[in-house]
């Protein structure tokens, strides 16, 4: 009986000693996306227009959702890579107006490892965007913001949301 009790006690001790807290991984926000996340065929799903002057002056009529206007959801943007470098892009506007002014050319970002700005370039014409939250890219969505200014004063912001096809 003593042997059995001793054996059980030893086994219990061994089991207790063998238990280790499971290491829990730190929460990692989706805070980075390299240029490969932008490659592909993107369809415009939402576009809004914000009057920055109204926002500054606390006027009514600050933002207008243009998604259902002018066939904007027809717009398809294709961003190609050459290896790991941004290369050609094309825009198929369908029945939508040519809001980005250009149909194709080359695209660039400010940092291939953590893009913050994205440019569509055709000769001397450049359309500049600020990249939205990287978390959207995880869900195959892309947000681009375009600001129009008068001198140094921001007047209009367009926000485009794309879905990867």
């Amino acid at each position, binding site marked *: 009986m003593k042997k059995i009790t001793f054996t059980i006690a030893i086994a219990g001790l061994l089991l207790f000693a063998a238990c280790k807290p499971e290491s829990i991984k730190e929460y990692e926000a989706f805070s980075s996306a390299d240029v490969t996340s932008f490659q592909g065929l993107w369809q415009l799903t939402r576009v809004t227009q914000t*009057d920055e002057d109204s926002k500054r002056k606390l006027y009514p009529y600050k933002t207008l959702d243009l998604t259902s206007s002018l066939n904007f959801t027809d717009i398809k943007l294709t961003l190609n890579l050459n290896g790991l470098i941004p290369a050609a892009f094309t825009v198929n506007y369908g029945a939508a107006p*040519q809001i980005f002014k250009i149909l194709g050319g080359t695209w660039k970002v400010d940092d291939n490892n953590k893009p913050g700005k994205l440019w569509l370039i055709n000769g001397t014409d450049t359309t500049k965007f600020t990249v939205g939250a990287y978390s959207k890219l995880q869900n195959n969505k892309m947000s681009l913001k375009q600001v*129009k200014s008068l001198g140094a004063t921001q007047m209009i912001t367009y926000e485009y949301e794309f879905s990867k096809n």
Partner: protein
Amino acid sequence: MKKIIFSILCLFSLVIITKAQTSGVVISPSSFTAEDEVTITIDVTGTGMAGATDAYLWIFSNPGLSGGADGVTNGNWTNSSDTAKLTPAGPNKFTYKFTGTIMFGQTPAQLKTFGFLLKKKDGSAQTPDYKPYFFDPLIYVSTVFRTFPKFISKNDVITAYLDQTLAVDVTTQRMEPSSAEIAIFNGGTQVGTTQMVNLKSEGNKVWSYTFFLPSLFSLAANATVNKLTFKFKGTVKDVNGNNTPAESPVFEKGLDDLK
């Protein structure tokens, strides 16, 4: 009543501004409050200052109204202040930046309009007066015609609104609007042909039309457009209850060079 008077003033100011622009003055932005920085560009060709290499600003607030003040940069008529000197912007062209409240040392509530002229430092030559240019109020005031956004360029999506409840003429109030004529201008010269478009009802007697100017007018990329006009069209009932054509006054909207 105040709204009606303000709307009339706005319409009047738009007409005045347009006339001033065609006489060699461009003001940017196209509308501004007393707290906004304004850039004036003046072409002095055909004035007493034509051919001058230096030009000085002589500016004053509320011309023709009570509570006017001289610009703090003016100096004396025979000896303009150096801070009033304009920057050359090409042959016979000069530019100057200022903010109303700072320039006149007055509050936004005191500032209704301003006027100015260009002169030589010693006052021996000058342009005519350019006036009046209207300051927008700091608070939002609804108007019968507006665009969203307020500041637009030829490459922006523009939504124009007609609010019949704020109309100052009976025809626009009574009309059942259905369409609008849109025309675009470079100064006083019309660009392209007038376009007729169908309006969308926003409810509560508000009507709208959304468009992208280069698509509607097939504009060349380098075309200059600095003004558009809207005339709303529809029908009203005559004494026999029959529909007869009717149209609103022409509403003007300045365009800015947004980049």
